[in-house]
């Protein structure tokens, strides 16, 4: 997968959006195609015992429609995209009406959920978009219906979900939520700076050694102030551990039991990552713009930095905001890391949002 370059990544994103569409497009009578099968996913909730209780508490409005509440964290362009999907669904059938409500950023939604959980089911939404790291929190709440339970009753084909994404949301052998917006960190580079430095603008560095070489070339050509930069951000650290094929916490990263301790200090992953980063900074070819990811982005957009690593989610902003041509590549790896195993970078998960059905 890595060899196919950025195009595959774009495919991943498109795929998750389609899944979202399918998820949102639930309830209509159509039964063909991907969205047709999923269509029944939400409506199917009423056929399972647990969920039917919830739907009966939902008051049908004057037109006799079942009203469902969907909390999400998508603002700006993504917010409009989610609203468009929900509108499509609402217009596609006349049994269910979904109210999509923006409830603040990922952390804000979790805060709201915590408050609502304590006050009983009345205040809970029917569907919520929870970020990846809230997966265990949702499962532990005991109030969610695993989405996998609805696959059999609705005939939804779970194979349309990427295996690596599915595995992230699988706890105790069950897929709990529907992926909505999965993103991964990748390398962004300034093609104009590459040209100026005499590098091939179509060839992104794939290993940290190459990143260092390219950063040196960019900086020495005077194309940018720094060849490379990355924000001091926990997600990148976590993702780099994944590229090394190592675990972040014990019990298989919490999949086979609760995490009781971190593993990166024992398995050597942290030292390797930090040594590499320190080496880049000490070489003088990498800049440090602090903990706010937006600051590193700004430096990159302003042409001050030749390469950064960032979420796939900022691609649109990167293209809109920079005056040079943007190039992308996979998150650089360590040349001695296991090649493309099942758990390499492609299994990155942190930013994946997902939808969960609540009782």
């Amino acid at each position, binding site marked *: 997968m890595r060899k196919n370059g950025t195009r595959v990544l774009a495919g991943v994103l498109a795929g998750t959006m389609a899944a979202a569409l399918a998820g949102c497009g639930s309830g209509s009578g159509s039964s063909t195609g991907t969205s047709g099968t999923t269509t029944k996913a939400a409506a199917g909730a009423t056929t399972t015992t647990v969920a039917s209780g919830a739907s009966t508490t939902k008051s049908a409005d004057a037109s006799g429609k079942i009203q469902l*509440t969907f*909390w999400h*964290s*998508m*603002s*700006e*362009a*993504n*917010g*409009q995209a989610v609203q468009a999907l929900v509108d499509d669904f609402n217009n596609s059938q006349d049994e269910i009406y979904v*109210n999509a*409500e*923006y*409830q*603040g*950023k*990922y952390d*804000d939604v979790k*805060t*709201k959920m*915590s*408050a*609502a959980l*304590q*006050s*009983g089911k*009345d*205040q809970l939404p029917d569907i919520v978009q929870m970020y990846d790291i809230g997966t265990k929190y949702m499962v532990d709440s005991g109030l969610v219906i695993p989405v996998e339970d609805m696959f059999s009753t609705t005939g939804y084909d779970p194979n349309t979900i990427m295996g690596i994404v599915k595995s992230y949301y699988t706890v105790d052998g069950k897929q709990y939520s529907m992926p909505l917006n999965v*993103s991964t960190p990748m390398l962004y580079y300034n093609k104009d700076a590459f040209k100026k430095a005499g590098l091939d603008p179509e060839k992104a560095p794939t290993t940290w050694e190459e990143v260092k070489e390219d950063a040196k070339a960019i900086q020495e050509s005077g194309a940018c102030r720094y060849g490379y930069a990355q924000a001091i951000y926990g997600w990148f650290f976590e993702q780099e551990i994944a590229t090394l094929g190592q675990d972040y916490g014990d019990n298989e990263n919490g999949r086979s039991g609760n995490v009781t301790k971190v593993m990166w200090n024992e398995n050597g992953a942290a030292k390797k990552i930090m040594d590499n980063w320190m080496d880049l900074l000490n070489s003088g070819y990498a800049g440090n713009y602090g903990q706010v*990811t*937006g600051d590193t*982005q*700004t430096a990159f*957009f*302003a*042409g*001050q930095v030749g390469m950064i690593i*960032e*979420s796939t*989610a*900022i691609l649109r*902003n990167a293209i*809109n*905001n*920079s*005056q040079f041509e943007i190039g992308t590549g996979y998150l650089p790896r360590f040349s001695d890391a296991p090649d493309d195993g099942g758990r390499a970078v492609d299994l990155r998960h942190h*930013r994946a949002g997902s939808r969960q059905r609540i009782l």
Partner: protein
Amino acid sequence: MSSKAKRRVFLTIIFIVNVIFAFIVLFPILYCFNVSNMTKTEIYAYPPQFFARAFSLDNYRTALQLAPFFRFILNSLIVSGVCTAAQMVTGALAGYCFAMFEFSGKNVLFTIMLATMMIPSQAIIIANYLTISQWGINNTYAALVLPYLASAFAVFNMRQAFLSLPRELYEAALVDGCTRFKFFYSVGFPLIKPALGALGIYTFLDTWNYYMWPLIVVNTVDMRTVQIGLGMLQGSESTNFGPVMAGAMMILLPSIIIFVIGQKQLVEGLTAGAVKG
């Protein structure tokens, strides 16, 4: 140099220094205004630019497309207005009692009330939320304002204001047959007006900026207040600064207007307090 000329030089220097400090204080707002007029490439240009190339409303248009800001401003005006009025009334009445009346347990009561100021508001948000949910008034203006109709700070502030009035005035009025309430509104109230005005502005700006409570208690877009509305323009991964700054300018305007209207009261109130302790 004559003393008059010296004075002129002195005033000029003071003026220049004032302008410099005013610029430093206003810089973020000026920059925010300029960025709200910039195109994306201007925002990310290097070296950074202070002035926008041209006045443009594009970012304002985008911000209004993404979120109904006028509705947010209306909601915030209602919520802040009600909270401010209520805190002024409850604060003045309670402060008057604490300052002028003698009753058993007064000091204990006052200390307990002051102690509540030490509890961070985040700590009681969940408890308040549970109460509001039990009453079934989530997502209403009532839910937004109820917890903020009275505040310990307002009571304390008003008590200090009433304490600054000579006690003899109060006693003489009572001896002459004035009722306590009549003294409150015909003598005390006019005298503490500057302090009350200052409290009003403070409370208004404070409630205008609330984030956590409105976020939790309100669910639908049409009930949102301004700060959450501003949050709707920010992405979880990256932010488009132009519309955000345009939104910030829009929600800044009402608070600036309130401040300009109340500025005289605020300055008078603050200096009055400072002199009298």
